[in-house]
């Protein structure tokens, strides 16, 4: 039995669905009703005890719209809210975890589930939307990671990491705030199952019901927001392609574009 749930459908969603259904009757193409109706990608947001698990409630739709506009990935504009006891956890393409404040420690069972999920191919994108190093969410998240995967540690991802070039060639991370000019990650062999940001990417993505940005991006303004979207798309593409961009065939192209 599934414990996850879809958020309520918005008016915008309803209109989109109606238009799609109508279009699907007359047109067929790469994003026909058949294919577009089945998303390959969705956010599964982890709900935990304590702290604030959902600091940017309206971040999903803008980033998914951008994802669908720029890439071949079909996405679901509704997120799934899940917990570490969710039996479907292992089927989620991207486990998203965000927060501002310190949260309660995971139970031993939850840690074991998360360890197994991450060790066997699951992917977690976590972000500290407060951006206070060593405090609040940052403190609790690092504590939990040490408990879950004690033999690995969160490290700054090097500039040639696949996540910086999985779709865009990223020069800056972006976000609502500029805490770190890099992403951190926990890498097992060639795969980084945990990527961590303190720049509040989802804060930069979030729009209100009228389509206005919820937050200002400081200090970089709109270019910083744009970079946050690019970083978000790269993280999603990385979660679905792993280190694909490290394949030999991509190497000369990437070097050329970096002017190396």
């Amino acid at each position, binding site marked *: 039995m599934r414990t996850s749930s879809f958020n309520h459908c918005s008016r915008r969603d309803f209109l989109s669905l109606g238009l799609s259904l109508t279009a699907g009757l007359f047109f067929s193409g*790469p994003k026909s009703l*058949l294919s577009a109706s089945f998303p390959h990608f969705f956010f599964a947001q982890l709900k935990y005890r304590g702290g604030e698990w959902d600091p940017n409630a309206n971040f999903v739709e803008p980033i998914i719209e951008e994802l669908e506009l*720029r*890439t*071949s990935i079909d996405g679901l504009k509704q997120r799934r809210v899940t917990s570490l006891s969710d039996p479907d956890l292992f089927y989620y393409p991207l486990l998203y975890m965000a927060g501002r404040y310190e949260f309660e420690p995971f139970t031993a069972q939850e840690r074991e589930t998360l360890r197994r999920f991450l060790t066997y*191919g699951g992917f977690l994108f976590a972000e500290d939307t407060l951006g206070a190093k060593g405090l609040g969410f940052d403190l609790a998240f690092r504590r939990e990671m040490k408990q879950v995967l004690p033999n690995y540690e969160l490290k700054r991802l090097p500039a040639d990491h696949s996540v910086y070039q999985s779709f*865009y*060639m990223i020069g800056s991370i972006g976000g609502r705030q500029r805490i770190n000019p890099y992403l951190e990650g926990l890498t097992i062999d060639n795969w980084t199952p945990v990527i961590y940001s303190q720049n509040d990417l989802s804060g930069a993505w979030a729009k209100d019901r009228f389509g206005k940005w919820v937050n200002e991006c400081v200090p970089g303004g709109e270019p910083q927001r744009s970079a946050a979207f690019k970083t978000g798309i790269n993280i999603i593409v990385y979660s679905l392609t792993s280190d694909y961009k490290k394949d030999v065939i991509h190497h000369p192209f990437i070097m050329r574009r970096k002017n190396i």
Partner: protein
Amino acid sequence: MKLDQIAVAPVFPMGIILLLFLLGLFSSLVQYFIVRGRLGHVKAISLSALRLIGISLLISFALNPSIVMRSEHRVTPSLAVILDTSQSMGQSNYGGEGSRLDEARSLLLQGPSPLLRSLSENFEVRLYELGDSLRAVGEEELKGLKASTSKGDLTRSLDQLSGKTSLGLLLSDGTMGWDGSQRTDFPLITIPIGSLERYKDILIKEVKAPALAFRGKELTVDITLRSYGYSGLTVPVLLKDGNRLLTAKSTRIQNSPGETTVSLSFTPEEVGERNLSISVPQQFGEELGSNNTVSLSLKVVRDKIRVLMVSGNPSMNYRFMRTALKNDPSIDLLSFVILRTPSDIMNVPLQEQSLIPFPVDTLFSNELKNFDLLIFDNFRYTLFLNPLHLESIKEFVRSGGGFAFIGGPNLPEEGRYRATPIGEILPLRLTGKEGYRRSSSSGVNLSRSGLTHPITRLSSDEVDLSSFWREMPFLDGINLFEVKTSGSVLLESSDEIPYPILTVSDYRKGRVLVLATDYSWKWYMGMVAKGKGNYGYLRFIDRMVRWLTKDPSLEPVQVTLPEKAGLIGQEMEVRIKLREEDATGNRRSTVSLSVFSPDGSRMMTKLKSAQRPGEFLGSFVPEKAGMYKFRVETPAGHLEESIIITRSLERLDAAPDHEKLKEISASTGGKYLPRGENLLREIEEYAKRMETRFIEEKRFSVWTTPFVLALVLAFLGGEWYLRRRWGLI
């Protein structure tokens, strides 16, 4: 008679015999003194003497005397005449005047004084043929002997003759096995046959080549040529695959006799068993042409399985499949994932994108043949590939490539591919109703074909196997296909009306697989979620790739051939190994071996179980040169292989080796005697030194003759008579 001809062998100790004699003497003296008073001195002495002689004769029985007769005799020496009948003795001699064997036969049987007859006058002659083994033959068989066997082993033959002959005579050209050891059992006289001076031949003496080569990797074959009589000549050395010339190189022969080494390099392009030949064209005047060619088998395998994977978009299916393939060190993966379609909008300049152009033309017009497996993963190929590319894919599969077609929502609609080359090679067609269904999840069930197919048969226990697949997590989306008659469904959906999930088929030389879902990755993560590990998914992907690329490790049976090419008449043994999951039980009846000769007729074979479960030893005896095909059948499938049986004259160095004959005779204490007028005399003179004599000794026991017994009775009876006559009784 002389005293030294008398021998005694006392039956009692001499002391007792002497004591008895003294007692006899004493009793005779006592009798003398008693009787002398009554009969007088003369008569008393007569009676006592008779008694003493009689008693002495009786006591002498104990000495067991015998007469020894000695006579000296001369022993006729035994002579083993060994005639070499190996193949080299069949070569023409002295420019075509019969064979070397004829020369040897002529020496033994013909002429005014045939050697064999002359030898028989002074020797006890035994004839032997030295072929594969030493065999005693009669004189009448000599004419019928043929030089057809392989090189004989002289060392072993002399071991056999040890103690049975006093002298050996070997007629040979010297091409035989000899370990060079010193021997003392009997001397061997060697008579050289043939002439090296007039012998002309070029032969391939040695070929150093690996039995296994990797496709696309250059390999070198080192060839050693030996030549006689062609000093200064330049000859070409050819390397062929069947009738196709692979490479050639000319080499100059420096010395005669001498050896030249040539290295030929080439790059095998086709996987499989290659039947190669190395040859040097036969030169004018060459005695033997058959040793100018050597056949060899070369197994060409992939160094890595080269896989081209194209995915329609980034997805979980892509990531898990790519990771599984990438983590396999035997797979060389080139994967492309369509990150954006023509309808997607790019908002940044080119240098800010990491996307590379999809090299469709390069891949599908030129490079496809360099891959072993093509995977389309949820790929709407109609957007990217033109009809020529599709035709190229069909040709790729037709010529032996593997093609995996993974489903998903992006597959082209039925009408877009039905009449295309892809539609032709796929064993399925879309139903045309829904295309892709995700309204309900489906489990999978193993079909009857799936029970035995190597991709899905992950265990030998059918119950375990079926439940293993049934337990796999449900698939959230499947493509609704209809199976063509060419398809074999291995897994089907658990719906009331099952849909094919995993279907395989052969298309000409290639293989095709359709996985009608983009959710097979759930078999990985779902099982991890259940705490059972990722074994099932990884093994499934591994087997899928290996079956599609006809990897030998997944064949139902593996056969190990002998490393060296076989020879006619020699038993060839092949080792047969069943696949691990089919090896349980080890029942011989489950495996059969059929061997077909070069003319297609079926051969007699033997098949027995080896020590390890699932392993068997098969054997057959080839009767002629050529390629023998054999077929191993098991319940899980069959395998066909071939093996080359070479003409036995291949690699034969038939040049006379008289130096070896000198070495042999010296090692045995014999003599090397070249053919000449004094040959017989020299043999006889040499044999005299070997002459042996013996003394015959005959013993006649004295007491076994009735005369001696009568003599004793006569003395004792005479004494009794005189005593009676003279009134003493």
